[in-house]
């Protein structure tokens, strides 16, 4: 229990300047949408309307793709080291205006300022900085073979890390000589719109980066556009499959970064206090709105009771509330829709027979909130143990042997990430070799770096983002 309450420490909203209404960013400038259709974007922590954004239609997408096609003519003639400089400059501008971006991200998406300020924004800037340096080294990145860019790339990104996902997509695409049409998520478009201003500021050639806001229908127009040469998508496995199906039979590149249901395996010989920290960070980071969240705790049977006790105690210290309060650990759920999904799955978990522990805390009256939750006494076939909840809900399963841990961990159609907690090095390597997952955190969790490839096995998608491997998502072998 909290013996000491924190005093409020609120980050000021004054630093951001939000327009009442936004258009699209096409051909190097903000333009009035042809669709003339708008939707409000709200702050999920207060339900206050922040701004109004356009729902791009076919004509808006046509315009953006045409602009990207035109932009490609210039961009492909731009010297690679010049391309690098634009990206370096963007990285610098992001660093300079980092606080502004962080506040805007927390306002629009509901994530704690502690995370947007100390995680998202530093990673965003670093990502542009990292890929900038590859722009003039593509000929040596993967041996001497000739790779070339796809051309016009369509990118569709989710609402959980809006600007970070933008940087994961845009930086490598531009570094490799492609031009971009980006569609951010309809609930979190504001930081992408601010990023567009930076592109204008650095003088990125017109048409190289284009932004069309909108919902699934806008994304669909982009996927089905005849002049798109590659689609990069991050989001749910359901939508990923739909995109893959839509592109069947077309010569369009595709990379998918989809859902997950990661196992976080705690062996009985783990450093338990560190493991508790890692498990908490693994699931409650960003309200659990993380595709690689460690949402299935696999704990060795002989330490279950002890571990759960420690875990519940630690969970109780989490501060849930105003995302702009610097003491907040868990912010608002991103949208009403998402909150409904989480509540539905959690109710099913209780109905199935799972034991639910939720921390004691007061939730704000307005906005969308969910208490950090832990399920025990769960059977492997419960929905809460198989479906991605994408919220602050951890499900516990137990195992006796390492073989059993691996079997349970792999018993899912997903394969994005996994965690291993043990002090025994050989057991880490043995386990890591057998886990079907693209990212494995041993004695740590939810660590990211622009230099480190990220992406899934199985139905968690294909292709990698980050590192040298991330370049391959935007290059094809020239024939």
């Amino acid at each position, binding site marked *: 229990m909290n013996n000491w309450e924190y005093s409020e420490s609120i980050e000021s909203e004054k630093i951001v300047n939000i327009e009442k209404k936004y258009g699209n960013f096409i051909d190097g400038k903000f333009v009035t949408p042809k669709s003339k259709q708008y939707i409000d974007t709200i702050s999920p922590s207060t339900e206050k309307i922040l701004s109004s954004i356009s729902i791009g239609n076919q004509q808006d997408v046509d315009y953006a793709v045409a602009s990207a096609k035109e932009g490609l003519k210039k961009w492909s003639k731009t010297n690679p080291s010049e391309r690098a400089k634009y990206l370096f400059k963007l990285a610098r501008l992001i660093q300079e205006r980092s606080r502004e971006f962080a506040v805007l991200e927390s306002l629009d998406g509901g994530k704690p300022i502690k995370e947007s300020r100390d995680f998202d924004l530093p990673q965003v800037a*670093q990502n542009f900085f990292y890929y900038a340096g590859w722009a003039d080294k593509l000929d040596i990145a*993967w*041996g001497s*073979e000739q790779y070339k860019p796809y051309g016009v790339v369509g990118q569709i990104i989710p609402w959980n890390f809006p600007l970070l996902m933008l940087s994961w997509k845009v930086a490598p695409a531009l570094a490799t000589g492609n031009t971009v049409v980006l569609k951010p998520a309809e609930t979190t478009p504001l930081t992408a719109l601010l990023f567009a201003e930076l592109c204008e500021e650095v003088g990125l050639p017109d048409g190289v980066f284009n932004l069309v806001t909108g919902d699934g229908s806008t994304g669909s127009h982009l996927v089905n556009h005849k002049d798109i040469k590659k689609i990069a998508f991050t989001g749910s*496995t359901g939508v*990923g*499959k*739909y995109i*893959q*199906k839509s*592109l*069947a*039979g077309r*010569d369009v590149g595709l990379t*998918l970064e*989809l859902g997950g249901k990661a196992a976080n395996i705690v062996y009985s010989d783990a450093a338990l206090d560190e493991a508790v920290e890692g498990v908490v960070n693994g699931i409650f980071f960003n309200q659990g709105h993380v595709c690689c969240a460690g949402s299935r705790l696999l704990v060795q049977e002989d330490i279950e009771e002890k571990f759960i006790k420690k875990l519940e105690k630690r969970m109780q210290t989490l501060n849930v509330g105003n995302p702009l309060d610097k003491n907040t650990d868990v912010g608002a759920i991103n949208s009403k829709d998402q909150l409904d999904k989480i509540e539905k799955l959690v109710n099913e978990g209780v109905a199935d027979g799972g034991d639910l522990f939720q921390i004691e805390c007061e939730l704000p009256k307005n906005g969308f909130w969910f208490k950090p939750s832990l399920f025990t006494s769960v059977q492997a076939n419960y929905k809460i143990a198989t479906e991605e909840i994408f919220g602050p809900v951890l499900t516990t399963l137990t195992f006796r042997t390492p073989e059993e841990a691996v079997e349970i961990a792999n018993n899912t*159609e997903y394969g994005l990430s996994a965690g291993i907690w043990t002090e025994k090095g050989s057991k*880490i390597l043995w386990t*890591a070799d057998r886990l079907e*997952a*693209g*990212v*494995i*955190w*041993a*004695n*740590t969790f939810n*660590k990211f*770096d622009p*230099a*480190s*490839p*990220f*992406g899934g*096995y*199985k*139905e*968690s*998608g*294909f292709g*990698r983002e980050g*590192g*040298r*491997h991330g370049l*391959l998502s935007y290059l094809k*072998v020239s024939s």
Partner: protein
Amino acid sequence: MTDIKKTYKNYVHGKFVRSESGKVYSIDLKKEKYEIPLTSKKDLRDAVTSSKEGFKNWNQLTMYNRSQILYRLSEMIEGNKDSYISLLEDHGLSKINSKNDINNAIDTIVWYAGLVDKWEQLTGNLNPVAGEYFNISHQEAIGVTFTLSSNSISLNELIKSILPPLTVGCSVINFSDKNAVIALKLSEDINNSDFPSGSLNLLSGKFENVIEDVGGHVEIKHAAIYEKISKKSSEILGQKASESVKRISILPSTSGISSILPFIETKTVWHPKGK
């Protein structure tokens, strides 16, 4: 004295088998006419079952061991060169072209044999992350892989549609149509090269008969198409594949490191550094 003509069969799990359907199709060469298995959906499923086990069998061998098995295949072909040359001649190739093709095929096998225990040094690396972490990206074989070989009358082209996935540790179901007699002949040398059961299966037939199952079977993790197929076929394959987010490669690279990239998954492992 009457010459004895060989009956060619599918090669599944280390055995020479007819199609369970009993169906065949003809390949009419200059001298000989062969009736070879018209692979059915059931045959394909049997091959997948075999390949699933084959993937485990192939992967539990060391890279050094796998490398030697591939090299062994080149030795076997070298010993039977004349019979391959005459088979290609019967397909209508000139003697010199036939000879060159077999020599090229042997060179291709030797190249991949030597790559088995090296490719990961070229595709994986440590990642210089900004923090006190050990971070390594290494690769694993994607699993059971289906390959549709090119229709060109060439052992070398056939080999190029088999070895890239096999080199990285996938088990392979190779499917051939117009060049199937060459493929089924190759299975004899494969059978003599110590490949573990199911690591490499060879089927003959018409791709359109099995296309939906290739796309839809969840145990096939990757389908690589080395022959130009119709837009319609490509649509069916892609649509079925999307149900399980299956990887599809249409006309992938057939040389260099880029030839193996479609068949590997990158796994990145993090660990903190500390005292």
